[in-house]
């Protein structure tokens, strides 16, 4: 587990990318890990079904915050449908190996929030007849 805290993880923890909130987000979601109290919020600026901009905010451990930070870089420019279908593999690809099963919940918190923002936005689209 101590191998997990590599330089790039600490860098994302201490200098999170895309951190903050959007003034008028087209989609957002927020969730917490009730086990530890970590919270994450994601704001999307969506244009023609594509995530044009993204911000995350929250508090928590290096694993949850660094994972969320890296995820914002992954999903910028993605279509909402793609975000909605992301699996935890994307988190594993971003952070690499070394997460214990209990800490996986921290690592995937941002993913869960991003997906619910995307799914919520898609659900609000008018049906295409």
């Amino acid at each position, binding site marked *: 587990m*101590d191998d997990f*805290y590599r330089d790039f993880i*600490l860098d994302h923890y201490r200098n999170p990318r895309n951190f903050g909130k959007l003034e008028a987000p087209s989609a957002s979601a927020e969730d917490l890990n009730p*086990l530890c109290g970590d919270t994450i919020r994601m704001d999307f600026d969506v244009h023609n079904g594509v995530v044009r901009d993204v911000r995350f905010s929250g508090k*928590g451990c290096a*694993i949850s915050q660094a994972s969320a930070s890296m995820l914002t870089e992954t999903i910028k420019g993605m279509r909402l449908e793609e975000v909605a279908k992301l699996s935890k593999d994307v988190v594993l690809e971003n952070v690499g190996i070394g997460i214990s099963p209990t*800490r996986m919940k921290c690592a995937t918190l941002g993913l869960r929030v991003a997906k619910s923002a995307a799914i919520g936005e898609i659900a609000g689209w008018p049906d295409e007849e």
Partner: protein
Amino acid sequence: MIAVRTPQAIAADFPILRKPTSRGKRLIYLDSAATSQKPQAVIDTLVTYYSEYNANIHRGVYEIAERATEAFEAARVTVARFINADYREVIWTRNATEAINLVGYSWGLQNVKAGDVILTSQLEHHSNLVPWQLLAEKTGATLRFIPADDRGVLQLDNLDRLLDGAKLLAISHVSNTLGTITPLDRVVPAARAAGATILVDGAQGIPHLPVDVKELDVDFYAFSGHKMLGPTGIGVLYGKRALLEAMPPFLAGGDMIRKVEYEHTTFNDLPWKFEAGTSNIADAIGLATAVDYLTEIGMDWVRAHERELLGYALERLAPLESRGLALYGPKDPALASGVLSFNFADVHAHDLASILDTEGICVRAGHHCTMPLMEKMGWPATARASFYIYNSNADIDALAEGIEKAARVFKL
């Protein structure tokens, strides 16, 4: 009786502490406030029960059923003696939480009315807060809180005013997050004078301090077996006999009845009136073995040992304060039990706990089921080390070295 006890000799009685971790480290268990480890004697009691005389109690007329009944009721007497109570005042529950809920639903719904005050404190575990929130919602009573200062010490200056109109004082003996010992010798007489009924959440009290319910003069004392060397799934509600007699049953079913007709039931005597269904026989007997073990060591020794450990921990960790270690709580071994909450620089408590884990050190990280207290103090999470009879100064040295390792991992 063994004349001189050392934590090393005690640790030898705990098989789990002799097994190295998967990384080949010595297991350094500093999470006894969550659950304690179990001595071989307790494990043996469970094995003997299940392999030699497992049978349901109070009904069977055959030999092993009689043996089980005898051991189960003897366990109650052992626990009663340990707290200086009558056996009829010892009700088996699953844990302290269930014991507190029993009082909330049975005594509470019968006695608490709209406009009454339930007084508790800002330090409480959710177990001694949420049941009272529910009772207040159901009855129209009001919750009031004894404030704690930023060290987690209860502020008793306005105690009499807070107790004005209080029907119930529900307070922890020891804070699970900060270790603060409630000065019951001050709080209980004030609550008595105000006419309040007194419930003490002893989950973190009885494992670590001598408890004499008569001397404390409390009406209810709730605790869990698993935090005091016993098995999980067994707890106790102590209640003064007159109060328990007057209370309606909480759960209904077998064992708590005397006579059942289709339309009407006569309930059993104390303590069985509150024990519906087949009890947790094995674990009650196991808890009695734990109590015997603690009695042999002596609760005064337990308290003195933890006081020394906390003193040593405060001294040993102090040099790390200049490097960003924040120690919370009273920071005075006279005022606290063997619990120490802390944070280190910008390392989140969960990351700290994960790094300590790589060295075989078990600490708790999070809100410790005291979310309102964490919010009040402005801590998103803390790491918590808690000590017991098997811990020694060497464990605290390991903790200090573990924190140094976290500093290296986080490039601090």
